[in-house]
């Protein structure tokens, strides 16, 4: 009797065997992750400061990008104001942990407490913006948040006591239970550990924590609500999701991620400077999440790594690249220019040729593999989604 329905359903080919694509390579995944993890732990023993700094910048960027991706990728709220919250985190930490007798205001709190408070402070700032963040969406919110950048820059330049003005202020050293993350050389296994080596592990821990937290949120109840708001605001409300409040809360969380990223950046920079926290920075963060893959935590990390490392690596190895000339020698392209071409081009290419960003590469590759196999086991989607919820 139900033959027709059955036929229709067969036509859809529900996934027969879960994970049909994995097959023999299944054991590979944990092994690869283990290898990556070990490598990350070992890097400070092998890499020069340049690489450690570059890596730390990427980690900080990744934390910020994860937060932005929760807002823009998963909830559909465009934000161009991320740089403001990065600055809040960076300067907040400086003020809270700063030397009370220094040239700029400092409360002299224990650094670890200052980190926590700075992140909370950034959250509060994000919360103050929620009358706007909760009500607006799309382009309007994006441009409204632009105001934050200009307000931020204005304050950074003018509130000398807090920010140190144009030349910024010194970042107090991080100190965790008496262990100071400063340039003081300690020797570990024959390798001198200085600021970057020590901070490396701080960065790893923070990033890991942020990744896990974000994944938990996105895969859980809040994540579903966020996606619903992105995809169908009215339906989300009718299903019981308090839309404006959720938007506000995601904005707060994303701000706190940015705040933490700001703290880490400040620790790496050792001096915070206002010019860094400009609109360009916000745009870079957007580029990160698009290149990496909207809505995906892993994508944010990949995108952040790509965007923050490209200019450094290109500039460093500029002599070795074709068409790139060393600065000042005239003709050709300067390394800075090439890196901009590359990352601008990557944004465009990611959207056009790799919908879903770098994070979709493995899946796309697997789909290719599957397509090559005779029996078309592929699910019905994969091609269609310009952005993948997670």
């Amino acid at each position: 009797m139900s033959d027709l329905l059955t036929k229709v359903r067969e036509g859809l080919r529900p996934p027969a065997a879960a994970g049909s694509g994995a097959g023999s390579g299944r054991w590979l995944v944990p092994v690869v992750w283990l290898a990556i993890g070990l490598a990350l732990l070992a890097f400070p023993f092998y890499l020069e400061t340049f690489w450690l700094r570059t890596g730390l910048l990427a980690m900080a960027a990744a934390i910020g990008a994860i937060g932005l991706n929760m807002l823009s990728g998963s909830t559909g709220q465009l934000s161009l104001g991320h740089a403001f919250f990065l600055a809040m985190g960076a300067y907040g930490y400086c003020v809270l942990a700063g030397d009370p007798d220094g040239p700029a205001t400092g409360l002299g709190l224990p650094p670890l407490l200052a980190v926590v408070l700075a992140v909370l402070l950034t959250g509060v700032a994000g919360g103050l913006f929620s009358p706007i963040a909760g009500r607006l969406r799309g382009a309007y919110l994006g441009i409204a948040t632009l105001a934050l950048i200009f307000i931020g820059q204005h304050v950074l330049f003018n509130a000398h006591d807090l920010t140190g003005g144009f030349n910024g202020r010194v970042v107090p050293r991080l100190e965790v239970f008496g262990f100071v993350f400063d340039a003081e050389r300690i020797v570990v296994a024959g390798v001198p550990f200085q600021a970057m080596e020590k901070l490396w592990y701080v960065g790893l821990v923070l990033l890991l924590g942020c990744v896990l937290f974000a994944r938990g949120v996105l895969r859980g109840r809040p994540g579903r609500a966020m996606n619903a708001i992105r995809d169908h605001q009215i339906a989300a409300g009718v299903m019981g999701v308090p839309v404006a409040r959720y938007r506000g809360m995601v904005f707060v969380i994303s701000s706190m991620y940015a705040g933490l990223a700001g703290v880490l950046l400040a620790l790496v920079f050792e001096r915070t400077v206002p010019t860094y926290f400009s609109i360009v920075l916000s745009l870079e963060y957007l580029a990160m999440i698009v290149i990496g893959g909207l809505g995906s935590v892993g994508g944010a990390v990949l995108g952040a790594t790509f965007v923050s490392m490209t200019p450094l690596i290109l500039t460093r190895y500029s002599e070795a690249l074709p068409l790139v000339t060393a600065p000042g020698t005239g003709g050709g392209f300067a390394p800075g220019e090439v890196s901009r071409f590359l990352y601008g081009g990557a944004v465009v290419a990611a959207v056009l040729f790799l919908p879903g960003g770098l994070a979709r590469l493995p899946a796309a590759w697997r789909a290719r593999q599957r397509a090559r196999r005779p029996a078309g086991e592929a699910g019905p989607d994969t091609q269609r989604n310009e952005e993948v919820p997670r």
Partner: protein
Amino acid sequence: MGAADLRVRGLNAGYGPVRALTDVSLDVPDGAVTAVLGGNGAGKSTLLRALSGTLRFHGGAVTGGTVEYDGARLDGRPAASVVAAGVVQVPEGRQVFARMTVADNLRAGALGRRGDRAAQQAARNRVHELFPVLADRAQQRAGLLSGGEQQMLAMGRALMARPRLLLLDEPSLGLAPMMAARIAETVREINTQGTTVLLVEQNASLALRLASHAVVLETGEVALSGTAEELSASDEVRRRYLGVADEEAAADAAAGIAAEDAGVAAHPPLTRWTA
């Protein structure tokens, strides 16, 4: 055969890995109403999209076969050029331009067929005659019309292009009985005024009443085809698409009993959730 026939031969189409049409062949004779029947997901909309050149908007593509209209090939052509050839589709789910006024929606309908003002005015008058509500609501935003009103607008908009062949995708969807009848009448009227119609419908009885020929699609393949009389006499069609010969089940349902077929019986009734 007359020149302005639509001939589909061996059409294959799909969405990425999903095959939606397999070797579909059919003819739409000039001046007639031809119906396409089939259940959910049978590929009816896909067929129309393949004809109108809009599969690509859904990530799909024609992978084989030919479509010929009036002696010229339509397959592979962009949508705008299909419209220029006189083949106009009313999409499933109405798809009116929600933020434009009703009047502008009608103007948009005329975009594909450049013609003199008089011809356009005539087309508009005709649409207003068929659907007076569109004249009353001319300045309202189309998105705020009710479902039925939107369906009328969608048809009116397509008529603004003065089509020779009109492709209708489930025009009675969501319409009140009277309105569904009105739409049916309108389809007939449009047809008698000289427009060929290819009608996709789930409401088979309505479709078979209007059409002279019909095709039944099942999971992307032509399962049956013939004249409307033949098909409505066929047991298969009566059972599956007309829902007659099934009175016991209906009676059961009327008694508030879960239908036997299709799954429900296989599962115990849902029990209350106790938190």
